[in-house]
């Protein structure tokens, strides 16, 4: 019998539908893989074995009854711990919410469950998604399955690591400045940030409301396409006023190829300081591959991209300050004992419930929104936002997609980047998409020749052209091979009984 990590989500669902194995066996195999691998990887904060087995039993019962099965029947799913799933803790990897139990389920999670996924558990992240390494988790770090001494990236580090380690076939992450695409790159898996508004944010604990977007991780492009279908097919979510109708079958044109398509590369980004030569060479090879498959590679400019990080560190903290104001230790979450009065209770609960980076961002946001300062920074950041959006619009008059690195380098070691501003720069290639709102996907290109660690390219398309992204990603997958499970983890537990 096969190991669970040797199967893609599509293969698992097909196997369950065909009766080659039951969803319950899949659930057990996935839980066993977590049991055997996660002590080293540390992707999971909480394993929801009962919920996974219950969901599996329902699928097996449906099949026994001859009912039609949903498209992701029996596929093990890991959920970033900023997404509500009723009956589980949703901690955002923060002491503030260490014991907070969800009373409702996020739309994105519910849609994955409705599509047949098994909720294996909740996975680690940087506290409230503030970070690029998952080192800001209040509970424990997560290790990169390719090299346990290294970080998995972040903030959705647990989501990327769980898929790379083969513990689950799919996971959900959220991306505010690169938090899906950068860890996908560090862990060598496919990670997609859809266009803002494509996936409902209802039930996902907000960091930056105008930047946050939920997306899937998988080891194959097809798996990510299936997840995108699950997330968008039911239509726009009436519970999220910013979500939009996105009626597209993401699996339909996967193998259309790139013949005649115009793919842009941005010279300034390829020559940026801090871009590792192995990453640059890999992205150049990707461009060459696309050209070989019939695409036309064109140079384009994105002149205001250097303003993206600055704009992001105004808009992000400002919105975070506002969104995190509700965590005051009064109704739920960490509550300081024996306080003299209300003001002291919320002040001390916040002082002791939040970690350093969470406090840093909120203080920054509180400052940026204060009167007299607001006009200077927030207003300027909104202007920069308009300019960057316009840059992309101009570029997309010349090309259908843009190819660039997903991260400037491969995974770094724990503790290697101690200066927060250095950490902020690791989002150089991803942040502008959150500013502009259009979608991007991180696609593995194999291992870098210098580090021996996964390297990825990022593809970017105009807003709501997300389906096309998957076609380009598929073209690269054909050329570079699908993402393997990290060798140190493969076939360690998780045999399908």
């Amino acid at each position, binding site marked *: 019998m096969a190991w669970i990590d040797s199967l893609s989500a599509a293969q698992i669902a097909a196997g369950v539908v065909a009766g080659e194995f039951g969803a319950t066996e899949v659930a057990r195999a996935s839980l066993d893989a977590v049991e055997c691998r996660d002590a080293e990887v540390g992707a999971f904060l909480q394993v929801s074995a009962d919920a996974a087995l219950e969901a599996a039993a329902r699928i097996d019962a449906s099949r026994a009854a001859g009912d039609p099965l949903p498209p992701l029947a029996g596929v093990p799913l890991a959920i970033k711990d*900023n*997404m*509500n799933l009723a009956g589980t803790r*949703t901690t*955002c990897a923060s002491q503030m*919410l260490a014991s*907070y139990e969800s*009373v*409702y389920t*996020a739309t994105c999670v519910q849609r994955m469950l409705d599509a047949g996924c098994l909720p294996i558990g909740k996975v680690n992240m940087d506290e409230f998604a503030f970070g690029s390494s998952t080192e800001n988790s209040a509970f424990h770090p997560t290790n990169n399955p390719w090299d346990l001494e290294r970080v998995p990236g972040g903030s959705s580090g647990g989501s990327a690591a769980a898929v790379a380690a083969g513990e689950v076939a799919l996971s959900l992450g959220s991306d505010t400045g690169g938090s899906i695409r950068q860890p996908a790159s560090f862990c060598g898996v496919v990670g997609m940030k859809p266009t803002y508004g494509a996936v409902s*944010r*209802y*039930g*996902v*604990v*907000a960091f*930056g*409301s*105008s930047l946050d977007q939920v997306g899937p991780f998988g080891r194959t492009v097809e798996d990510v396409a299936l997840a995108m279908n699950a997330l968008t097919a039911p239509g726009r979510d*009436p*519970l*999220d*006023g*910013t979500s939009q109708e996105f009626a597209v079958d993401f699996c339909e044109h996967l193998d259309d190829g790139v013949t005649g398509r115009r793919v842009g590369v941005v010279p300034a980004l390829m020559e940026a300081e801090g871009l590792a030569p192995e990453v640059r060479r890999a992205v150049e090879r990707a461009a060459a591959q696309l050209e070989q498959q019939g695409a036309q590679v064109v140079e384009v400019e994105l002149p205001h991209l250097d303003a993206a990080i600055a704009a992001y560190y105004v808009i992000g903290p*400002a*919105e975070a*300050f*506002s969104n995190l*104001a*509700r*965590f*005051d230790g*009064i*109704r*739920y979450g960490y509550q300081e004992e024996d306080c003299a009065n*209300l*003001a002291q209770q*919320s002040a001390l609960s916040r002082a002791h419930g939040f970690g350093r980076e969470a406090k840093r961002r909120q203080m920054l946001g*509180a400052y940026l*929104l*204060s*009167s007299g300062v*607001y*006009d200077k920074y*927030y*207003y300027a950041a*909104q202007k920069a936002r308009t300019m960057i959006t316009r840059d992309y619009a101009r570029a997309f008059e010349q090309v259908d997609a843009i190819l660039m690195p997903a991260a400037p380098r491969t995974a770094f070691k724990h503790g290697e980047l101690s200066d927060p501003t250095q950490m902020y720069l690791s989002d150089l290639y991803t942040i502008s998409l959150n500013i502009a709102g259009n979608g991007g996907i991180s696609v593995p290109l194999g291992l870098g020749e210098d580090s021996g660690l996964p390297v990825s390219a990022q593809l970017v398309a105009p807003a709501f052209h997300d389906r096309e992204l998957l076609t380009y990603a598929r073209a690269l997958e054909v050329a570079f091979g699908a993402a393997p499970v990290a060798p140190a983890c493969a076939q360690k537990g998780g045999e399908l009984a």
Partner: protein
Amino acid sequence: MKELAEVLKDWEAVIGLEIHTELTTLDTKMFCGCTLSHDDEPNAHVCPVCLGLPGALPVPNERAIEYIVKAGLATNCQIQKRSMFYRKHYFYPDMAKNFQTTQGPVAFCMHGRLDLDVRGRGAAERPECAFGEGEASSLASASANAVGLSASMGEQMPEGASCGGAGELGLPERFDDGSYRVPIRILRIHMEEDAAKLNHLGGEEGRITAAAESLVDYNRCGTPLIELVTEPDLRTPEEARLFMEKLRRIFLTLGISDCSMEKGSMRCDGNVSLRRRGETALGTKTELKNLNSFKALHDGLAYEICRQAEVLEEGGVIYQETRHWEPSRKRTVVMRVKETADDYRLFPDPDLAPFDLSDEFIDRCASELPELPDAKRDRFEGAFGIKRADAEQIAGDPATAAFFEQAADGLAGKAAQVVANLIVNELAGYLKAAGASLEESGIAPTQVASLARLLAEDAISSNQAHEVFEAMAESGDDPEKIVDERGMRQVSDAGALQPIVDEVLARCADQAQQYRDGNQKVIGFLVGQCMKASRGSGNPKLFNELLRASLS
């Protein structure tokens, strides 16, 4: 302290109002699907959104937008096609998110106007006065400061108006009867959500200070609330009260709120400052809270004007502070002193897209506007020929107006006025005493119409009408039935009454003689005797005539 009238001879009061109205007639809250109801068990109507649970997102209530647009149209505001929601931050447990969703520099409704008609005693409180040059603009900017907004929030200024361009301050128009009409400018009406209700137990007077525990009821949290801010155009407590009454009548007619000041679904804060008559610079203002009835609004402002005058006349200084009106002790006390402006860190709510109201939407709202109280009053006065004051009172309450139209259907002049009198006196008095609404009372327009007919036909006297009305309201019986059963029908047949007159004159020979000797007053006694003898059923006017004829 001096009396208000005396103070206002030397001082001019500059008053602005901030009026919050809960849109209680909506089914659901502003940003979630929870039922709007404040009377149920605490926290019976809550959900992740209005509790501010992690991950919850707001979705605006479209009907609430419709309501505020109607409120704006009915108060002559310019409806802003593009406006946004903002987040206003403050840490307090009555707002689960620790920010209130409200609007920024551009509200749905900007720059409106209502005209007030001030009559009677209150009209004397505003002596003829000339307004200084440039006053309007200085007032407009002062009021913009009052709501804590700067024009540079990265949002476009409202359509059809430059910064602070609320139009000129209008002059009052005097009429021969001493009354006057004055336009009051409305700065804006914006949409926001109400906070939760805090119940402080064990402390003094329900305040948080020294409370043993404080409980939060989130049923009210997220209730759609509209805030109207006037320009500081009001000059007397009477004008403030009339403005509030007029606004309430309009909102009731629109059906957007139950407008209960008692229950707090309509609340008013007043800003007031004084300046010497003839001066144009504004004095330091105080903000008054707890003005939760028309009387409190009037009396609180009147007290505060007199207090400020006394302080100023004694050479003292007015501090910018918030004061609490204590109706029982008839005074205002300091709640808090505002030394610096609070920093609410207002910024556009990223969870709520900017609103782009279409012309079709605004046109539809306009087409759905009911006849407003002023228009209705004019129509009642013109078509039915009833007194203007009665027309105004009846037109001000939609249920009463509809009731009147049915009861007075086909009537005009005196007959219609009889119906109006019954409604203004008997019906209003009965409902107030019974504490019931018109609907709850079960009284039908046809009943009042019948009663009016009995009165107009002299079948009953106006004293009897009161008795019949009470009986009708209690029993639900028709007036004719009550009159017949109680033998109240007034006899207006001279032939039937003459024997009673003869009998009384025979019995009261002394009084009859007094009359003949020139004492006209004694006729009243004789009419009374006739009424008594007829057990109240005789027509007193006819008795009077018959007595005079018999005695001449």
